[in-house]
Structure formats: C-alpha cells, structure tokens
C-alpha cells in the first residue's frame, strides 16, 4: 500500500498546533496520545499534554461517561499549557464528538470514525439525528473516515491466517488513527513501530497487526485526496541540552531517587494505592536496584506510620497520597511533626471533597496540608509547578526535611501527575548535595556524657537525628509534649508554650534561609501582580505573556513555598496597585496572603476539575487588574 507516487500535498508551516484524541475508554486514546507525544518530542517541538479520563475503568461502551481523551499542544516556540482549544479533534465515536466538539476552535478540523456512528451509538451519545449530516458540522472541516473498516481491511490477511480474530483486529483502530494524524503533521512513525515491536515482543502477530494498522493510517492520508494539506511544526528553539519527555508522577519518582542518591540515604516509600498518586509507587517499585524499599501498606494510616518508622530508622522516608488519604494520615503527620523526624508527604491533589473527582485536577488541599492536624502543628508545605518541576520540588522537599528535621508536605495535582512536557536533563553532579544537609548524631551531646534528643542546632533549630543502634544515645520519642533539650514528657505550661513557639520559629527559620523571590516583570513598570502556586504556572505564564503583548504591564510571581511564606512577600505584594491570585480552588492562597500581608489580594477561582485555559485568565486578570479603569 505504500504508494509513493501520489501527488505531493501542499505542506503548511504552523507555529503550533493542538490535537485532541477522544474515544471510548477502551479505545486506547491515552496510549495513542502518548505515542503521538513521543513522536512529537523526538521531532524537537516544545509540548504540553492534557490527559483526561473517567474514574471508571470501563464505563459502559459508547456512553458520554466513558469518553477518554488526550490533548497535545506542540510548538516551535516555548509553550506553557496544553492549549485552550484544539485545532484538530479525532472522535472515535459519537459520544466523543458530542463531548468534545464544543471545545474545538471555530472552523477546526474533525476526523470522525464513521463506522462507530451507528444508530445505537448515536442514541447513547444523546444525538437524535446524525451530527454528520444534520448541519451540526457546518462550521467545521469534517473528515469522515471509516476507521474501523479500514483497519479490518488492512488486517484482512492477518484475520484470514488466523493470527488474530476480528475483535482483536478492530482494537488496532487507534493505531490507524495515529498513523493518519502522524501523516497530517509530518511526524515520523518509525519510533512507534519500534515501540510496538518491543511492547508485543512476546506476541509478534499483535506487533505486526498494530504496525500494519499504523502504516495503513499513514498511507490512507497519503493516498486519498480527502486531505488537501499536511502541516509541519518545526523544532522549537529550546535551550541547548539533552531532553526527554516526562510526566509529573514520573518526575516525582525520579526526584525522590535523586534525593536518595544525593543524600546517601536509602529511600523508603510507604503508600496505599490512590488515584492519581499510585503511579509514583509503580515507578519506584521498578527501581529497587537503587536500594528503594517500596511498601504497599494496608491503609493510608499504616503508610504514614511506616514512613515515621523508616525515618526513625535513618532512611529517606516518603509517602504519597491524594486528598482523602492525606485526611487519614493527619494524626500521624502530627506525630511526625512533634517527633521532628525528616520525611516527605506528597499530596497529588484531585477534585474534592470526600471522594470528589478522583481523576480530575484541583488545588483544594492547600488548607488541609497547612492546617489539617489537631493542635498547633506547623509543617513546611511546598508545591510543584510543572511536570518536570516535580523533580526539583522532590529534591527541595528532601532538602528541607533533612536540614530542619521535619515532615514536609509536597503538593502536586492530577494535572501535573499525568501530563507531560519536555525536560532538559539536569547535570546529576550539580543537583543539591543533600548529604551536606544533615549528619547522624553518634556521640553524646551533654557534658556529663548524656544525650538530649531535643537539644537544637542554633542555626536551623533542628534536633539531633540519632538512630537506634547507636550505643549511648538510647532515647524515647513520642506524641506527648516534650521538654526542651531532654525530650522527656512535660506537662509544664511554660514549656508547652515555648515548644509551640519554637515549632513556628523553626518554620520561620526555613523562610529566612530561602533564596530571594523571583518576580517576572519584563517592563519593570508593572502595577498589577499575578500570584500563583502549583500547576497553574503554565496557564499564568501564557496569560501574562498575552497581556503584555496587549500592552498591559503585569508582573508575575509563582510560589513554591506555601509554608513558610517567603518573608519578602508582604513588602512585594504591598508594592502593587492590584494583586490577583487565580487558583483552582475557592481562594485558599488568597485568603492566606490577605491574612499574612494585609494586602487586598483579589481572587479568580474555578473548580471544574480542568486546568485553567490561558484565555480565561487573560480575561480575568484584565478585568480585575484594569477593569475599573477601562
């Protein structure tokens, strides 16, 4: 079928493109998106992805509830978001079209699998008539492709020879769609062919079928005259270096491994499965040769307890969960705080409250991590701002934990966890030297040869980390209030007041030792400041860029440290006419900033389970920042 004699199409150069694959949960859309992403990365584009899937593993086929999608934004420029509105939608069934058509750009291109547009499927998707011929598609460039039929025809030989049955052959239709879109965007498919052969190494007949379908899709684009153009997005001018694609959960796992290597401490990872954090456990479980002990506990509380035990034992102890699991860990986190042991607690946030929206993103656990424990129990809280930033933030969490002997909460979210971006690989020997952040105590610290486990370092206010097994330093830890120095149980009123203040002072010490805040203000004349934290960084970057191109003088600061807040913040915020704080929650950071700085911080909030679109942020910031003037 590889007819190379077909006429050359006109190749249109684009600066960027947004493609969305949508289909049934069982149609393999996430895999299709992943493959297209890898091909795109290898073509040298900057990119950002947005996977979106239902919480049900297999919702009823053909229904709106079962639609799974994957969006990819790629560009020859530096980009920060997975794109607001797709240029191209691939809809594998009517439900996918119904759910995603409205997101498409006006005049956008739609490829539909006509074979799935049966009366039954149309009905399931809530269509009373076929959108393909009732005028629904008038404003779009519609390409009707019998994707299932083409796949079966391409695999006729395989079916005849009994290599696979019709149902198995049909399952290759996502590869046909991938081949077609790859052709449209001039993406080489050789890498995916290799990947398929590798993936199905033990089932060569499946490898061959998938590769055949992939090529058939490519050739279909090339030979039919339905497609008048192909597109090309040239490689982006990224900073020199070696790159790979990485998702947030994968970067988090690698960051923890890096923290282990750089601290010289073996990693202990105790957790209980929960969406969207489980992939960190899966990733680390594959990396045992780094000395990682992964422990799947019986519940969230047990996972938290196990990391306290591992920290007591002298390992780099880490757990991860999502909102509901963090709620269960709260009491044990208080124990970790009062026993002043170093560990990292990761919260890959999802839509709440309660079970909420397990597979959707939200930033609504900030208060839970800041305040969700009994008593005055301050712990440092930091947040990652992009998939690749999860790597650096994991190292930063370990640095704070080890330096100051405290549990550290690290916030990620469902969007960061599953979306991907190109990552310029760091030089390993330039990563923070965490081994210098701590030393185990091996000698008595009192003149009489005794050991006082709560006698603090005057610089960091960290207490000694003396491991069981060390002769002469036997001591007892626990959740009851400690006497300063000796660590003995103390019910003394003045001591409790002093210990409580000390725990806040230690947090302040972390803040005082942070590098200066980075404020982005190219003009240096901005009078509006946008403050963000976590995964909104990309959309905020894009929005501020757009505002500046419209002549708005806007500055932006993105907070990695939420507790302690950077000590420069009160003065910084007070120096702007307007401070805007967009969040995927109901205004948690904004409330904190108002309380801490007495600046009238203005919120913009949305909790739809989806990341912000940069266009909505442009409108919101413009309205809040300049609306009164306009």
């Amino acid at each position: 079928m590889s007819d190379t004699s077909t006429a050359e199409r006109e190749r249109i150069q684009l600066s960027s493109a947004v493609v969305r694959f949508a289909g049934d949960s069982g149609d393999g859309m996430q895999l299709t998106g992943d493959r297209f992403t890898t091909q795109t990365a290898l073509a040298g584009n900057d990119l950002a992805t947005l996977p979106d899937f239902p919480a049900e593993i297999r919702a009823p086929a053909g229904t709106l509830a079962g639609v799974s999608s994957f969006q990819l934004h790629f560009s020859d420029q530096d980009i920060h978001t997975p794109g607001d509105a797709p240029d191209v939608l691939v809809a594998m069934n009517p439900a996918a079209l119904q759910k995603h058509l409205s997101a498409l750009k006006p005049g956008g291109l739609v490829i539909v699998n006509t074979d799935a547009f049966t009366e039954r499927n149309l009905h399931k998707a809530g269509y009373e008539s076929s959108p393909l011929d009732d005028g629904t598609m008038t404003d779009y460039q519609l390409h009707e492709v019998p994707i299932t039929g083409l796949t079966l025809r391409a695999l006729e030989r395989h079916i005849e020879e009994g290599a696979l049955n019709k149902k198995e052959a049909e399952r290759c239709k996502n590869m046909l769609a991938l081949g077609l879109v790859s052709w449209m965007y001039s993406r080489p498919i050789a890498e995916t062919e290799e990947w398929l052969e590798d993936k199905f190494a033990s089932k060569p007949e499946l490898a061959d079928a998938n590769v055949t379908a992939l090529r058939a899709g490519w050739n279909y684009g090339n030979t039919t005259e339905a497609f008048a153009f192909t597109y090309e997005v040239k490689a982006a001018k990224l900073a020199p270096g070696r790159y790979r694609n990485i998702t947030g959960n994968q970067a988090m796992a690698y960051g923890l491994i890096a923290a282990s290597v750089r601290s010289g401490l073996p990693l202990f990872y105790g957790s209980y499965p929960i969406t969207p954090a489980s992939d960190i456990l899966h990733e680390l479980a594959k990396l045992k040769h780094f000395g990682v002990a992964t422990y799947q506990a019986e519940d969230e509380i047990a996972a938290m307890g196990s990391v306290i035990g591992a920290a007591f034992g002298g390992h780099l102890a880490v757990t991860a969960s999502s909102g509901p699991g963090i709620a269960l860990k709260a009491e044990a986190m208080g124990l970790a705080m009062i026993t002043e042991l170093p560990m990292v607690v990761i919260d890959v946030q999802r839509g709440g409250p309660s079970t909420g929206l397990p597979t959707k993103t939200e930033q609504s656990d900030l208060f839970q991590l800041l305040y969700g424990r009994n008593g005055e129990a301050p712990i440092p809280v930091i947040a990652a701002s992009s998939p690749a930033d999860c790597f650096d933030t994991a190292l930063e969490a370990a640095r704070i934990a080890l330096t100051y002997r405290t549990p550290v909460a690290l916030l990620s979210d469902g969007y960061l966890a599953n979306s991907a971006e190109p990552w310029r690989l760091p030089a390993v020997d330039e990563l923070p030297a965490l081994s210098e952040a701590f030393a185990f105590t091996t000698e008595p610290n009192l003149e009489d040869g005794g050991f006082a486990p709560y006698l603090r370092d005057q610089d960091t206010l960290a207490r000694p980390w003396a491991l069981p097994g060390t002769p002469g330093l036997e001591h007892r830890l626990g959740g009851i209030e400690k006497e300063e120095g000796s660590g003995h149980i103390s019910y003394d009123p003045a001591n409790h007041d002093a210990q409580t203040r000390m725990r806040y002072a230690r947090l302040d010490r972390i803040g005082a030792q942070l590098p200066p805040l980075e404020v982005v203000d190219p003009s240096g004349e901005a009078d509006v400041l946008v403050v963000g934290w976590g995964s909104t960084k990309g959309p905020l970057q894009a929005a501020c860029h757009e505002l500046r191109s419209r002549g708005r003088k806007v500055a932006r600061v993105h907070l990695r440290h939420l507790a302690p807040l950077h000590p420069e913040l009160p003065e910084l915020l007070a120096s702007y006419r307007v401070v805007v704080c967009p969040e995927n929650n109901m205004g948690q950071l904004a409330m904190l900033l108002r309380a801490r700085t007495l600046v009238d911080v203005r919120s913009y909030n949305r909790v739809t389970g989806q990341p912000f679109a940069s266009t909505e942020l442009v409108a919101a910031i413009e309205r809040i920042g300049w609306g009164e003037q306009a």
Partner: protein
Amino acid sequence: MTTNEIKLTKKDFTSDREVRWCPGCGDYAILATVQSLLADVGARPEKTVFVSGIGCSSRFPYYMDTYGFHTIHGRAPTVATGLAITRPDLDIWIVTGDGDGLSIGGNHLMHTLRRNVNLNILLFNNEIYGLTKGQYSPTSPLGSVHKSTPMGSLDRPVNPVSLALGAEATYVARSIDTDRQHLSGVLRGAYEHRGTSFVEIYQNCNIFNDGAFDALREKGQKEHNQIRLVPGEPITFGPEGERAVIAEPDGSMRIVSTEEAGDRVVVHDPTRPASTTAFALSRLAPSPTGPTPIGVFRSVDRPVYDDELRKQVAAARERYGEGDLVELLEGGNVWDVF
C-alpha cells in the same frame, strides 16, 4: 572482650524515669520480667526498640533504657513495620493493649501478623480501658457493666489468641503478668522467633477491673484452671493432673477427666504446619474465668516479610547492578538540542 560481650543486667534496661502506673498494676510485674529477660538473653539496649500505641501499657517504652517510640492510638505496628523494613539489625518489640491493639488498631494487627514482619508483639489484656478510666474493651465479657455500659455491654468479646491464629501468625502464646517464670519462657520464645511473635498477657487492672484473671492468678484457683501447654506433652491439668484435653471428631476440643480421656489426650505440638489444632485449643476457654490454656499455641517458620523485601532489593541489584542516576534520567527517548 568487646563491649558486646559484657554481661548486662536488668538495671541496664531500666531507664531513669519514674514509673507511673497505679500502685498494684500488673504492668509492673511485666516490666520487671521483660527487663530481666533482655539481660538474660544477651540483648543490647542500643539494638532494642520498644514501640507502643496509646493506653496504660503503651507508657512501657519510657521505662526501658533502650530506644523507644510512644506512637499514637493503635498505630504502633505501622511505625514498627517501617522500622523493621529499614533496620534488620534491631530487636523490635511492640507493647499494646486490648483497646489499642484490638479495637482502634485491629486492622494493623491483622496485617502485621499475616505479613510476618520481624517484630514481637506484647498485648497486655486487662479487659478494660484503663487510661480513659474504665470503659469496656473488645475483650470485656458480654454483659460487662462499666461506665459506658451501665446496662451491660452488647458486643461479643474477641479472643486475641484465636484472632492471631486466624491471621496465620507464626508465633502465638499466652501468659500471665505475675507468673514471672512462665512469662519469661514465652517471651524468650518470642525473642528467638524470626517473624511476628504475638504474646497475649493477662494483666490485672486493680483499679477498674480488679480480679478479672483471679481464676488463673490466685493461689487456690490457678492450680485448677491453668492449662499449661508444653510441647511434646499430653495436655493435662489440675493439682493432680486429673483433667485432660481431648479432641472431638468435629475438630473441637473438650475437657474431660484424665481417666475418661485414656489415650485420647491431645499431645501438644505448636510446630504443626496447620493452625487448626492450635485454633481449637484457643477456643477451649470461652473466657479466662475457668480452665484456660497458657503457653505457646503455635510456633512455625514462614518467610518473613521484611527479609523477603530486602531480598528483592538485593536481587534487583544483582540483576541490574547498582542504580545509576544518569542512566535512569536518560532512560527514555532522549534528544539533543544544540
């Protein structure tokens, strides 16, 4: 002679903290027995860790001059498991009670036992909540009248030994706070056992539940009621050995006169691979107010969770070599930008 060979005494395991249990509490006797035992078996204070939850018994670590961790209610097994996984060189003891271990922490207890983590669990059973001043506990007899149950408790008590056997624990024993010699014996067995050892200790709370175990503790009664399980010996008891335990055709056990039992007396063997017989023995006494077995119900070898976990790490290193961070980061599809 290295320091490791210096013979330690009970004093070396005794901390300088004032013991603050109520005068007359059974915990004192257990504490003294444990301190002496550790000296006897040659344990090292720096290699010994006591982990506890919440409750009267859970104050135990403060009185031991070893490493210790007084954790939160019911969660001692979770902290101890993390410690055991990371530190195979330590002897880790959990001290818990009937409320801490069986009520709020029941889930962790079950999972620790089935995993067979290398830990020793001492469950002080006094059939009452002491620290919260006298509510009924999961081991209180049905109909117990206490502060929270003025008309009698409604829930059926749990038998800790049956529960441990049901969770397929590999070392299960029962003893009595004041029976120093017997307690020492089962604790020594627990210390020597690799995997999770579970020891239920009947402990008298003289303030809120005095006399709960008189049938087994008091002179004049205990001779009639203690069924002492001795490996390899027929299970008989009573001042003259006049009563015996026999197995019924349905697998349950029954107490009869030695005369009636004849050659049907069950010979105790805690090493039987199946826990069926041990379980039947645990069901012999509905409550510790009559004849009740004490001693080691079960002692078998089974792979130990934390040993196996460390073996997997070692096997992965054998197979892939020591992890290399650069190799890991560059492990996906990489491309260079110049």
